[in-house]
């Protein structure tokens, strides 16, 4: 690399460390490259670099999730909410017994979008805390009745929530969609394009045959058996398509990592101003490979 190119790289060098989002820094570049290659090193075999990356990943992930869930699940809806409700309760009390209902309503706390008395709001939150503590009893006593109550409430609420929305979107509307004419437009009744018609017929045949495969209540004759066979083929094509999409996604992730390594291979990230040759991907890669080779030579394989 020419001296001019090195000087240009030094002039546009990112800071060693910055809090600014979306702004690259040298430390971040080195960490990203090292941990990316450390994870990839598992493809060779399990090793200390991979173990380190795995533990750091789990640690950072746990810290982040704990912080987010504490902030959004405890601090805001409990600490801040109860604090605000307590302040509103004091204000309502200060209005005195002859306060107008409008003035009291103005100071009420909201729960699920509806205004209620602040003391009730605090009481309901306290009930939620008690139920949460009940859940933890399972840690000490497996067969206790206490965790069953909050679990029952959660299952009930969740079932009700799922029942309405899911049935509508994934059953009723899906069945309605299947009952349309495969040959004409549902909007104005005009004939559809030939390829759309063929596609609709294939879909219809596949759907009926796939459903036939799951008929186990009576003995199968030749027709039902044949339809079930077509149903199995339809299902296998579906699973193949899903597998293909999954592979597509995984390769996209690999490409993104390669792209990220490429981003940090510029001379501006190079050690001691030595240019791209000592940039994070090459140095981290060389360190990992050299260490793995050394470890491999130091520990003879079982076959030896």
């Amino acid at each position, binding site marked *: 690399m020419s001296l001019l190119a090195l000087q240009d790289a030094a002039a546009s060098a990112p800071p060693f460390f910055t809090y600014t989002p979306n702004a690259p820094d040298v430390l971040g570049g080195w960490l990203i490259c090292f941990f990316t290659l450390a994870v990839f090193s598992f493809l060779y075999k399990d090793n200390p670099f991979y173990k380190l990356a795995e533990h750091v990943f789990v640690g950072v992930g746990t810290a*982040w999730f704990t912080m987010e869930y504490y902030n959004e699940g405890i601090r805001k809806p409990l600490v801040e909410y109860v604090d605000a409700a307590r302040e509103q309760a004091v204000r309502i009390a200060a209005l005195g017994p002859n306060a107008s209902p409008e003035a009291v309503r103005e100071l009420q706390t909201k729960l699920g979008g509806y205004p209620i008395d602040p003391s009730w709001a605090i009481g309901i939150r306290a009930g939620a805390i008690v139920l949460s503590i009940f859940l933890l009893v399972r840690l000490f006593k497996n067969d206790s009745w206490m965790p069953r109550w909050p679990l029952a409430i959660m299952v009930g609420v969740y079932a009700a*929530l799922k029942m309405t*929305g899911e049935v509508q*979107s994934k059953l009723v509307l899906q069945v309605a969609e299947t009952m349309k004419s495969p040959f004409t437009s549902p909007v104005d009744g005009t004939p559809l394009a030939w390829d759309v018609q063929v596609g609709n017929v294939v879909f219809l045949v596949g759907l009926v045959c796939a459903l036939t495969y799951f008929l186990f209540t009576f003995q199968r004759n030749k027709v039902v058996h044949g339809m079930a066979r077509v149903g199995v083929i339809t299902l296998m094509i579906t699973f193949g*398509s899903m597998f293909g999409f999954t592979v597509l996604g995984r390769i996209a992730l690999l490409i993104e990592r*390669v*792209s990220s390594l490429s981003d940090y291979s510029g001379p501006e990230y190079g050690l001691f101003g030595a240019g791209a040759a000592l940039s994070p991907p090459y140095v981290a890669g060389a360190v990992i490979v050299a260490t793995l080779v050394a470890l491999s030579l130091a520990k003879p394989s079982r076959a030896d």
Partner: protein
Amino acid sequence: MSLQDFDRRWIFLAMGVIVVGLYAFGPAAEMKVNQYAQSYFDTIEALQPGDIVLLSADFDPASAAEIEPMYIATIHHLMSKDVRIINVATWPAAPPFTRTQFSVIPDVYGKVYGKDWVELGFKPGDDVAMGNIGQSLRSTYPADARGNPIDSLEIMNDVGDAMRGIKLLVTLSAGYPGILEWIAQVGGRYEVPIVTGTTAVQTPDLFAFYPNQVKGFLGAATGATQYLQLVDEKLATVVGGKSELTAPKQENQKRMLVQFWGHMLIIALILIGNLIYFFGTRQGARA
């Protein structure tokens, strides 16, 4: 050594060589836009200046490779049309991505926080949180991600309970909770049109919902590239020449070629593996 004892690390190496080699030296190629990506683009394109969109970031670092380009392009597209954005997240790891993008893109279009866009932040609770957002955005988020009371934000003057005032729900979804839960909890109940961008793993689930329950969708990195092409073309026409999305578009186009050959390698390996199994079984039967 028989082929059945083949060391699988050679396969990893082959994939690595293809991906790194093509990424380093491969060209960027224009993609044909499919109807799903075109519908996503057209649905946003049909919005009017001043309309409000609920943008939900339902992804994390593991899916950012596929979803983040869609997210960036969608914000550019919406802001270039002067559509107002309410940004929420149902995944705890999404806020760093949303903060990063919203710290840069609104300045490009001169958008003001609280008036043109707002970030409400992460809300735990999965389906329940989504149901609550649909029922009442105000009671679900008493304050925005910066701690401002929700009613102090100008954009909220035009938003009511039961999704009133929201013209479109855009969800960039990487799994659970994501697009399927938004459809069940909000789309059907409040009749809000939905468009989505998803990871490849989730894409096959969406065909059944298109075009009635989902107006358009971007399937994986392929869909993201197609959408980047459409938005870049539109923005480049407005500003004349290159847009903010030209570089990300070219980067994604380059990745598509790599993805194609990576996929071809997998297909070839599946065929070879089946042939080895087939001939191995026949030899076993003869013996």
